[in-house]
């Protein structure tokens, strides 16, 4: 059975027609080929994270922020044209190689995978010297050039690498890839004008090749740098409507269709935006995607007086479109769920369009239509909270079918208002009536006590949790220690941190406590122990310096700061130590210094 909730809220990449590999399956999970996952993994993770959070806290404001953030990130983040497919040797060419040639290429490949670019380049060079006439030679030359790019020798890569592939093996498939790589490398080193010319040439010369897709994508990136919106729209249109979607070209095309839709929504061209999304998503998925991409423009446009009319019109169009997309026949559970999600979408859009008087009725309609719907009530409560109407929000929570969950949300809303007494009272009520989730409510109760600065009560609850929650006693021991620390009971805090097992974090906290207690020697001993952890070594040395400085031991402190620079010249803590020495002690001889290959 399709999980319509996921389908609705998760914009997923899919193409119509030939790209079957990325189609969303009926089980609700997307089967993506490896090349498709590069860009939209973040997107997908964002959605999953969002949905998880949604179910837990039902904070609509967070949802709106999340969507807006994700959409902004997606619009700003260019699709990274991985172009892995271009630097792979086709199977046919591989078959034609002799065993020795294959062996040499495998050696180069091994170093390539290890990111040992220098050796990989040397192995490619060896291949070229030994087997100049081989059919693998252009591939070796291409790989050598790409290794030069990795070594930040982009000029060498262009002049002596990619160009050589084009000059010596003009008919090889690698020559086409090399032409594209020249443009991409020019873009990477800031030669935008040349890059534009090269990439345009690639698109014109090989319009049906995969390089054209990547070149168009890079051109979009260049237009983004120059803030050239018309060019971006033109290029998005090309990728969305003109490029034939295959396994390799799908990701940039999907992304382009999404970006184009977002831009069209922003311009108020609702139908064009829907058309753009329709190239990627089928009829079942489309309402979810329209809802996802129209949110941000509606929120932005209605937020400003001069664009409010435009935003209102867009909201009306979107709501009308979603209404007409609602299944007429809601006899099956699936169609019922789709209809429910569409109603949620409409209610959300009403809220985003700032039509406050219409928001409660919209959610109430869902509650009425689908009997007591906790999700709808939760969304309504979050909306009330966003309007600082906490009483109304609590009214909604109290109507929950799951009474304990509703009461938990009521208690949390008291915490949000810093009404600690009522929060504690409500959590205690919950503990009495919901023994099954004792650990959860106890931890919330302790947090409420901490918020109210009632340290002994909080510690007592955490101590109970240490005993109750046998699975994760370390977590609660850490909380006991942290509460002692927050309460200023540093000696007790040290004792409890010592019992924790999350080295070096517990040692860092213990050292901090010793510093507050003016016990520099103990702190330094702990920092020295922390330095056995490689990742924390430079940090701990810097902390030793600060500790000595606090103790008035200027000379050893200076030496310690200098040691940070000397021992870890490439570390960011060296920067802190260097600046501190210069600014506080007016010492310019900070030691350190390094060369970056």
């Amino acid at each position, binding site marked *: 059975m399709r999980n319509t909730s996921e389908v609705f809220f998760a914009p997923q990449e899919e193409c119509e027609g030939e790209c079957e590999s990325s189609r969303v399956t009926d089980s609700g999970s997307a089967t993506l080929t490896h090349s498709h996952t590069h860009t939209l993994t973040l997107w997908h993770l964002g959605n999953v994270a969002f949905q998880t959070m949604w179910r837990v806290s039902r904070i609509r404001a967070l949802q709106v922020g999340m969507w807006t953030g994700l959409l902004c990130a997606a619009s700003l983040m260019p699709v990274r044209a991985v172009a892995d497919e271009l630097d792979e040797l086709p199977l046919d060419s591989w078959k034609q190689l002799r065993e020795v040639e294959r062996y040499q290429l495998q050696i180069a490949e091994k170093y390539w995978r290890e990111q040992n670019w220098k050796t990989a380049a040397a192995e490619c060079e060896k291949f070229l010297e030994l087997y100049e006439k081989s059919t693998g030679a252009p591939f070796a030359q291409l790989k050598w050039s790409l290794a030069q790019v990795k070594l*930040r020798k982009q000029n060498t890569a262009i002049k002596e690498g990619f160009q050589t592939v084009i000059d010596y093996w003009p008919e090889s498939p690698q020559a086409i890839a090399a032409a594209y790589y020249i443009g991409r490398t020019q873009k990477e080193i800031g030669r935008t004008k040349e890059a534009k010319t090269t990439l345009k040439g690639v698109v014109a010369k090989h319009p049906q090749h995969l390089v054209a897709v990547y070149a168009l994508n890079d051109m979009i990136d260049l237009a983004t740098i120059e803030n050239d919106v018309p060019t971006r729209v033109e290029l998005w249109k090309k990728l969305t409507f003109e490029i034939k979607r295959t396994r390799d070209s799908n990701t940039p095309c999907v992304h382009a269709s999404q970006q184009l839709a977002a831009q069209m929504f922003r311009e108020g061209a609702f139908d064009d935006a829907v058309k753009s999304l329709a190239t990627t998503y089928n009829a079942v998925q489309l309402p979810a995607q329209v809802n996802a991409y129209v949110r941000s423009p509606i929120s932005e446009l209605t937020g400003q007086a001069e664009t409010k009319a435009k935003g209102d019109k867009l909201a009306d169009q979107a709501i009308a479109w979603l209404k007409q997309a609602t299944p007429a026949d809601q006899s099956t559970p699936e169609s019922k769920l789709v209809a429910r999600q569409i109603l949620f979408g409409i209610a959300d859009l009403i809220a985003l369009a700032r039509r406050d008087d219409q928001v409660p009725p919209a959610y109430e309609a869902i509650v009425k239509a689908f009997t007591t719907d906790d999700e709808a009530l939760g969304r309504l409560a979050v909306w009330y909270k966003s309007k600082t109407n906490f009483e109304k929000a609590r009214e909604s929570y109290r109507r929950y079918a799951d009474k304990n969950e509703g009461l938990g949300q009521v208690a949390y809303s008291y915490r949000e208002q810093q009404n600690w007494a009522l929060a504690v009272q409500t959590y205690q009520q919950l503990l009495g009536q919901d023994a099954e989730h004792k650990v959860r409510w106890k931890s919330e109760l302790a947090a409420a006590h901490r918020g109210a600065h009632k340290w002994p009560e909080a510690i007592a609850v955490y101590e109970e949790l240490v005993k109750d929650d046998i699975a994760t006693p370390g977590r609660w021991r850490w909380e006991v220690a942290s509460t002692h620390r927050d309460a200023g009971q540093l000696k007790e805090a040290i004792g409890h941190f010592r019992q924790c097992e999350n080295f070096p974090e517990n040692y860092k906290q213990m050292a901090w406590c010793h510093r507050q207690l003016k016990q520099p020697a103990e702190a330094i001993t702990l920092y020295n122990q922390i330095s056995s952890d490689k990742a924390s070594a430079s940090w701990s040395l810097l902390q030793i310096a600060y500790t000595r400085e606090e103790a008035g031991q200027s000379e050893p402190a200076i030496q310690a700061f200098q040691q940070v620079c000397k021992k870890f010249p490439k570390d960011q803590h060296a920067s802190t130590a260097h600046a501190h020495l210069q600014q506080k002690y007016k010492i310019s001889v900070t030691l350190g210094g390094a060369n970056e290959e």
Partner: protein
Amino acid sequence: MIKFLSQLPRRLGQLTGGYAVLWPLAMLAWSTDEWLPTWLLAIVFSASLPLGVEWLRLIRTRYGNDRKAQALVGSAIYPFWWQLIVFWSDLLGLSDLRSGMASVGTLGLFLIGLAWLVWGLERASRRIELTRIDEALRNGPRLHSSPASSGPTVDSAGRRRRIWNPLDPLAWYYGRSSRKLKQSTSALVTYGIVFWLAALMLSQLRGCQRIYELPAGGGVQKTVAQTVKIQKVIRKKFVVNPLSAIKFAVPPIDEVKLQLQEVTAHQYMIGYGEGTGAGFAGGTQRGKVRLIRFEYDGGDWNLNFGIGGDGNMLLEYGLLTQQKVAEKTESIRIAHLASFPREKSPPVIFLTGQGSLSVSNSDVKLLREYLQDKHGMVFASSGSRHFHNQFLALMNRVLPDVRPVPVPVDDSIHRVPFLIPSFPYVVPHGGKEPLGWSTDGRWLVYYHPGDISDAWADGHSGVAPEIYNGCFQLGANVINYGHVEYSKWLQAKAPGTGTGK
């Protein structure tokens, strides 16, 4: 005053008059361009010291009790001695003292002016009051004709009129009450505004145009060949049993006396063009390579500035490239960029610091104009992580359409004249690779994120010789790159090339 002047010794008066003419000229020469030699400027400015002392001595002997005369002379001497300190601190490379004196001295000038204003105002208003009392005593009944009103005052002829004189506390616009306070307040506000406007005008005064000229000459764009130095190898002597199995009969090899230093020494000049000597096409005989840095508000623009700081780099640049270099490093405000003509602007300007970087919108515009229209280049170095962020934010404002990119290892800026195989830095404040802002294949900005100026300074921050030498070579490359690009631009614009506009 006339009496005072007439009693002065004639010779001192003549000397002072002559100096009063010379001094502004020297100030103009110093603040605009060095068209007068420094030694001459030093003589002119230093002459204020004996002259001032002579005046003080004279006042003490002749007008020992006349505090007014003492104050007058003291006030007159103040600006001369103030500028003398500023001049010498600049000459000696004491940039902290110079900038400190510049601001403290301005405050002093303001206070002296204010003191004279209070004195003058008090004196004038008292005189008016006394005159009015005298007049009233003469005319009797009209003494209090309009005592507390701000309305018309009755004059001697019996006419009612409004007083407009601001020195008169009874002026109508001072109102009915607290007239003296209002008079003082308005005088202070007016003086403050006038002083501020005058200071603003003087700071914006560009005077004669500043000029930057490249040193004449030529050179090629090639990497300098590494000179090989032969190290003397001390052979170890082994004391072993002569009957052992070790064979000491080393077969003889040809005695080859390699003159490696001569063989590997580079035979070409560093620069650009076909002139003689190391220099640049489009340069002039009096032109020199100068290391100029930007002064800015908000932070420490003078980090490692002058002698013992970037002065070392300038010196090293001269040694490394054999090009003519200035005697000392300089600093300018961004606003001063406008005073450089289009084809006589500095090809490279250095910028560094540790603190904040406050640049106005008009300065941002000037900087953009300098980089794009005047073919300039900024060579920046970060002295702290905070400065790194500040600089990136500034460049975002200056060049919003250009994105910074890591400068390739094999770029000409890292190869000519010195090969920089690995990027040297003192400390990674802003990453471990240099960033560049490029347009039309030219680097407009080269940003070193690792405090390069610390490596140039005396003591070299205690870094290893290969690192500070690398930093000197990198600095030389960037400075040379800026000059070469500028020279190419000048050549392209020269009449007859067909590309000049």
